């Protein structure tokens, strides 16, 4: 598609234009930069945690600072990286993939970002002396009402700002997705990333109010002396856990579903064929989204809820493994009779799949009370969700960074350094998280600043710390490669991956208005029909 009347790329804008922009691409980039900065802060705090656990005893930080680092790491990784990064991919890709010039409500979109930004500033304020929060990202009362936990108000307001941003953004993007698709892009033909992104936003709309309610009750209890969670005055602390996990379990699907979407996009493109079992993939996404709301009690298997409820929820929990398995099987099926190209994003994608398989399989026993009773709140749990979020999600996101890098910048990244970064990330994180499983099986409780000098624990912790530093070097190389390539990289063609997906049919970087005229997609077009592109080369 030729473009008329464009004199500068969309990123060649002044600071004022950036601040007042309602352009979905600029907003997407701002989300991305914010998420990445917070990812690095959270990563550095993780290195601090690993250093402290290198040997028993307290060497580098005292317990209070350790707990602060851990809270910071958890909150930032969850809300800024694992959730926030989808603000970036979603905003950037959604209008391009459906042939729209912007989202449905561009100004609401800008408001969402600036609310997110306000939450970011508030989160950084907790680094100031005297306002440290030390209650972990879960913030369970009655502990969070104790002065030892730090100022709860910060936490509650951060959640409210993030929640408002998420809700506004979710409604905006659902409306955009459902009502602004260009002619010829049916729901069935829509990119799989958009299906998972749609499911993600629906989960946000249904779930966020529960968390917002929970932290509001916390705020009232702490500062206005209500007694929602105070057992001495008739409250119940377990109520908080129910409200909290009613959102915070589905939120793991908010994090991982779009990652599944990215994996589907990349594996199809680099196998040069349509996703295997596309219909069942779409059903699997919605199956996960719906089942995700019926499993939250597995976080509370030891919290004193009646035994029969634990059993009931163990069945619903393990059933989530079924749609998740379907997705993995179909990805493997997509490789069958493909023509597979091992580019950096493809290698990231394959790593994400095989690491997610470990993360998924180790999630199943956590849903079995007979197993959970022995490793609840141990490092096994931590290792499980680091395989899912720290590896599968992060690898998919980094794969996505590389995949859409030419689209975003019009430049090509360095394949060599991209692969070096990935190899280091894979070596480091597998040493790190796999040994974390073992120390967890041996009983090491999570959120411990110190541990007894049990010989095997010391060895396991030391290797984990080595792994963490290798991982950090890999992440550093990966990000540095992208930054340097954006400046010095070779010019990339408009469609380096030869994908018929709509975002690749326009110039790179995309013109400010995306499409000169709203595209009418022909009946034989499909985002994964690679032959169609060959036939129509030159016309698009």
């Amino acid at each position, binding site marked *: 598609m030729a473009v008329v009347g464009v004199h500068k790329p969309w990123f060649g804008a002044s600071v004022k234009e950036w601040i007042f922009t309602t352009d979905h691409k600029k907003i997407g980039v701002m989300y991305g930069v914010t998420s990445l900065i917070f990812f690095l802060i959270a990563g550095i705090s993780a290195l601090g945690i690993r250093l402290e656990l290198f040997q028993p005893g307290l060497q580098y930080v005292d317990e209070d600072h350790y707990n602060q680092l851990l809270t910071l790491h958890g909150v930032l990784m969850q809300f800024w990286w694992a959730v926030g990064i989808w603000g970036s991919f979603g905003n950037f890709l959604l209008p391009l993939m459906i042939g729209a010039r912007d989202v449905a409500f561009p100004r609401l979109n800008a408001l969402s970002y600036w609310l997110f930004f306000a939450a970011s500033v508030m989160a950084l304020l907790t680094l100031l002396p005297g306002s440290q929060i030390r209650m972990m990202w879960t913030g369970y009362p009655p502990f969070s009402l*104790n002065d030892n936990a730090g100022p709860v108000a910060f936490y509650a307001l951060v959640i409210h700002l993030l929640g408002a941003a998420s809700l506004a953004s979710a409604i905006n993007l659902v409306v955009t997705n459902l009502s602004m698709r260009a002619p010829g892009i049916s729901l069935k033909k829509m990119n799989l990333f958009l299906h998972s992104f749609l499911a993600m936003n629906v989960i946000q709309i249904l779930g966020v109010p529960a968390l917002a309610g929970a932290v509001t009750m916390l705020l009232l209890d702490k500062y206005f002396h209500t007694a929602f969670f105070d057992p001495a005055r008739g409250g119940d602390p377990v109520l908080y856990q129910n409200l909290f996990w009613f959102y915070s379990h589905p939120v793991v699907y908010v994090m991982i579903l779009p990652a599944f979407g990215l994996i589907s996009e990349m594996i199809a493109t680099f196998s040069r064929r349509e996703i295997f079992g596309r219909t069942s993939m779409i059903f699997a996404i919605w199956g996960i989204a719906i089942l995700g709301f019926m499993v939250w009690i597995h976080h509370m298997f030891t919290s004193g809820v009646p035994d029969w409820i634990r059993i009931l929820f163990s069945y619903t929990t393990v059933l989530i493994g079924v749609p998740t398995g379907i997705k*993995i099987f179909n990805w493997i099926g997509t*490789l069958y009779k493909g023509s597979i190209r091992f580019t950096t994003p493809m290698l990231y994608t394959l790593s994400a799949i095989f690491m997610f398989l470990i993360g998924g399989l180790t999630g199943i026993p956590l849903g079995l009370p007979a197993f959970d009773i022995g490793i609840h709140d141990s490092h096994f749990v931590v290792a499980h969700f680091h395989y899912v979020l720290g590896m599968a999600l992060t690898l998919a996101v980094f794969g996505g960074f590389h995949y859409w890098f030419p689209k975003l910048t019009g430049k090509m990244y360095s394949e060599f350094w991209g692969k070096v970064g990935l190899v280091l990330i894979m070596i480091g994180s597998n040493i790190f998280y796999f040994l974390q499983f073992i120390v967890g*099986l041996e009983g090491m409780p999570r959120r411990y600043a110190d541990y007894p000098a049990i010989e*095997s624990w010391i060895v396991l912790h030391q290797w984990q710390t080595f792994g963490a530093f290798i991982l950090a070097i890999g992440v550093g190389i990966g990000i540095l490669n992208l930054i340097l390539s954006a400046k010095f990289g070779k010019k990339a063609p408009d469609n380096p991956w030869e994908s018929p997906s709509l975002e690749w049919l326009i110039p790179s970087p995309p013109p400010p208005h995306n499409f000169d005229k709203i595209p009418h997609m022909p009946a034989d077009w499909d985002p994964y029909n690679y032959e169609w592109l060959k036939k129509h080369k030159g016309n698009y």
Partner: protein
Amino acid sequence: MRRAMLGLLGAFSLSFAEPLAEPAQLWDKMYYIWLAISVVIYLVVFIPGAYFLVKYRYKKGSNEEAQHVHENPMLEVLWTIIPVIIVIYLATQSFAFYKTQRTAPEGAFEIKVTGFMWGWSFEYPNGKQVYAFFNMFEDPETKSYLPFDKIPDMAKAYIPAGVPIKVLLTSQDVIHSFYVQPAKVTEDAVPGRITHMWFKINQPGEYWAFCREYCGTKHSKMAAVLKVVPKEEFEKWYGEAIDNKQVSLNK
């Protein structure tokens, strides 16, 4: 490293002799069932995946284009039904084990355990109490954990070997969680509620119990030592007059 790996295997010894502690043997069984199934599933996915990656890699001249395979409804049904059967089996097996893991045997010895910031109190049926304060477990100078032999005896909870113990748990302040390492059981201590768990340790020795719900500054020192002694020795300790020094420590 080698030791750690051996530890991994050793921790879940396969012997069918009397287990070190109960109901840990059920946890071990659940672990092995899950592990075996998981390894098989991993291989079932990984081997074809790796094979496809090699066989269908892009080759100039011979494999430049993908062939068309859209979907296979039979396969989709198959890999929906088989996982359903596997997970239902796992959940049902867990249900069966869990019933035993949660039901204390008849005539179990009852101990009340109360968590507080930061320590545990153990109250025996005759009123005898043991307090495990966090600072009894740490070196006053380096603040690191003391080894078992340096921890004062009065901070250790005596447990008779081979006798099932039913623990009634609660908390004075915030939520804690009582984890008995050898028995592989965990249950939260929740203020305003009484929760329960049971365990039986067959082999005399000293064992850790840890707090597993984050509870503030000294969470990682909120431990207890279970001193498991033969029944006669326990009777002797249990019968001793309540130590005044210990009681005054409480106040």
